[in-house]
C-alpha cells in the first residue's frame, strides 16, 4: 500500500534508538529532505531530527481570542437590538455574559487547534506519504530518503551501516 511513485530509498529499523542514529547520519550527509516514520512520537528520534516546537499554540490562542471577542460582540449586539427589561436588570448586564464569553473562547480555541493541527501536518490526504510501510504503525521505525540515480547506492550504504534492518529501493 505504501508504494508511491516518488523514487527514493526506504530503510526499516527495529527500534527508535538505531533509527535516531541513522537520522543523525543522514543529516550529517547533508540531506534535509527525508521522512522519518515511527509508531510513536519517540523522543530520541524527535531529538535527532531536532525540529522547532510546533507553532500550533499561536493558532489556538488566536482562535480562542476570536471566540472571546465574538461572544462579547454577539451578547452586546443581541441585548442592544431590543432593549428589553427583564427582572429589572440593566439591558447591558455583562456579568452573566462572562459564561457565554468563556464557552465561546474554549469552543473557538479547540476548533482552531484541531483545524490548525490538520493543516500543519498536511492532513487530510488521500494516501500516506512516500515510503510509508504498514509496519510503521506497528513496531518498526523507518527513514525514506527521496533520491535518484547515482545517489541511491551511497544512501543505501549509509543507511545500512547505521543499522537498517532492511533497505528497499523505490
Amino acid at each position, binding site marked *: 500500500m505504501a508504494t508511491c511513485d516518488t523514487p527514493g530509498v526506504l530503510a526499516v529499523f*527495529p*527500534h*527508535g*534508538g*538505531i533509527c535516531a542514529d541513522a537520522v543523525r547520519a543522514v543529516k550529517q550527509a547533508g540531506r534535509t529532505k527525508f*521522512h*522519518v*516514520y*515511527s*509508531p*510513536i*512520537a519517540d523522543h*530520541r*528520534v*524527535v531529538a535527532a*531530527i531536532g*525540529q522547532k516546537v*510546533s507553532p*500550533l*499554540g499561536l493558532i*489556538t490562542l488566536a482562535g*480562542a481570542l476570536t471566540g472571546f471577542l465574538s461572544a462579547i460582540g454577539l*451578547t452586546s*449586539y*443581541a441585548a442592544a*437590538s*431590543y432593549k428589553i427589561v*427583564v427582572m429589572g436588570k440593566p439591558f447591558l448586564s455583562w456579568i452573566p*455574559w462572562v*459564561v*457565554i464569553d*468563556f*464557552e*465561546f473562547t*474554549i*469552543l473557538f*480555541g*479547540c476548533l482552531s*487547534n*484541531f483545524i*490548525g*493541527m*490538520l493543516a*500543519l*501536518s498536511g*492532513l487530510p*490526504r488521500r*494516501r*500516506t*506519504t512516500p515510503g*510509508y*510501510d*504498514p*509496519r*510503521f*504503525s*506497528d*513496531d518498526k521505525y523507518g527513514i525514506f530518503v527521496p533520491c535518484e540515480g547515482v545517489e541511491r547506492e551511497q544512501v543505501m550504504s549509509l543507511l545500512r551501516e547505521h*543499522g537498517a*534492518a532492511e533497505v528497499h529501493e523505490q
Partner: protein
Amino acid sequence: MNETLAPTAIGDIPEEGVRDFASVNRQILGNIKVTTRQWWIVLGILIAGVGMFLSCEMNQFFHGIGVDGMNNPTFWGTMLVNFVFWVGIGHAGTLISAILYLFRAKFRTAIARSAEAMTVFAVMTAGLFPVIHLGRVWVFYWLAPYPNQRELWPNFISPLMFDFVAISTYFTVSLLFWFTGLIPDLAAARDHVPGWRSKVYRVLSLGWSNNQRNWRHYARSYLFFAALATPLVISVHSVVSWDFALSIVPGWHSTIYPPYFVAGAIHSGFAMVLVLLLPMRHFQKVKNIITMDVLEKMAKFMIFTGLILAYSYGFEIFVGMFSQNTFEMAAFLKRLSGFAAVSFWTTALCNCLAPVIFFWKRARRSVPWLFLVGVLVNIGMWYERYLIIITQRQTYVPFSWGDYFPSANEIGLTVGAFCWFGMWVWLFMRFMPTISIVDIKEEIPHAATEAQHGHV
C-alpha cells in the same frame, strides 16, 4: 508485503503489562473482529430500546408534554433529571483524558479511550432531554442565536442559554478531542485490519502516516486540547448547576451547587466507567492492560469524590438551617424527614456510604465489589437529581403545593435513553480501538523493545 505480522492473530496474553509494540497491536486491534451472533442480538435489543424512546417522544410530541408527570408546582420532571445525570456521566471521560493527562497520571492511559468515548455518547444522550422536554419542540432552534428578520435574539442572561452554549461546546470539544486521540490508532487499524473495514479506517484516519511531521503537531495539539478541556469540564457542570442555583427556589438557590455538581458528576462518571470497563476488560481479554492497579486507583478516586458529596449534602443542610429562613429550612427538613426523605436517604447511602467500602483494600481489588459500588453510585446519583427536581413540589406558597410522579411515558424515555447510550457503547467496543495503542506503546520502556533486537 510483510508476513511478519498476522494482524488479527491474538498473541498469548501475559498476566501483567505488555511485552512489545507488536503484541499491543495484536491484542487491541485483535478485538476489532468479525461480529458474533450474540453481539447482534444485544444490538437488536438496544435498538428496540431506542425505538421505544422514539415512540414515547412522538407520543408527547403529538399529545403534548402533559403525557408526562409534570404539573403546576413541579414544572420539570425526570427529563431534567436524565439530562443532568447524563451530562454528569460525561465528565469522567474528560477528566481522565484531560486533567489526569496534565497531571501525568499513568493509570489513565489504559482507560482514557473508552472513558472519552463514554463522554461523547453520554453527552449525545444528555443533549436529547433539554430539547424534548420543551413544550414546543418544533421551535427548539429559537434557542440558537441565529440572525433573523425580526432581530430576535435569545436572552443571554438565562441559565438555559448558558446551558445551550455550554453543552454544545462540550459536545464539540469532547468529540474532537476523542477523534484526535483516535487518528493514529485508526491508522494502525487501517494497516492491520483486513477486508472492507480497512477502507473505512483509511478514510477515518485521514491519511495519517506516522511520520515526524504528523507527530510533531499531534503532540502539541493533544496538549492544548487537554489544556482547554480542563477548564471546560469544570465549567460545564457548574453551568448545569446554575439551571437550579440561579433560580430562587428554596433548596436550589445555593452557592454550593457548582462545586458539588462537578464532584457529583465525576463521582457518577467514574462509577459508570467501572460499570462499563469491568465487563469489557473481561470479554476483550485486556486484563493485562487495564490492570487491578488501575481499577484500584479509580476506587480510591471514588472515595475522594464520595466524601466531597457527603460534605456537600451535610453543608447544604447546615446552611439551610443556619439561614433561619422559613422556606430554606422547610425545604431541607422535608429532605431529612418528609416527602423527599426516601430520595434523600437513597442518595446519601448510595453516593456517600457505598464508596466507603473501598477503604478496605480487598474491596478495592475485587471485581464484584467494584461493579456493585459502581451500580449503586449510579443509582444514587440519579436519585440525587430526582431529589433536586422534586424540591419544587413544595416551595413558597403552601396553597400551590402539589405532587409529582413520573408517568409511564417518562419512564419509557428514561429507559430508552440508557439503550441509546448502550447502543453507541456497544458499537464502539466492536469497531474502534477501545484502548489507545499509541499511549500504551509509549508506556513500554525502550529496553523492552530493544532487548529483542540487539544493537548491530
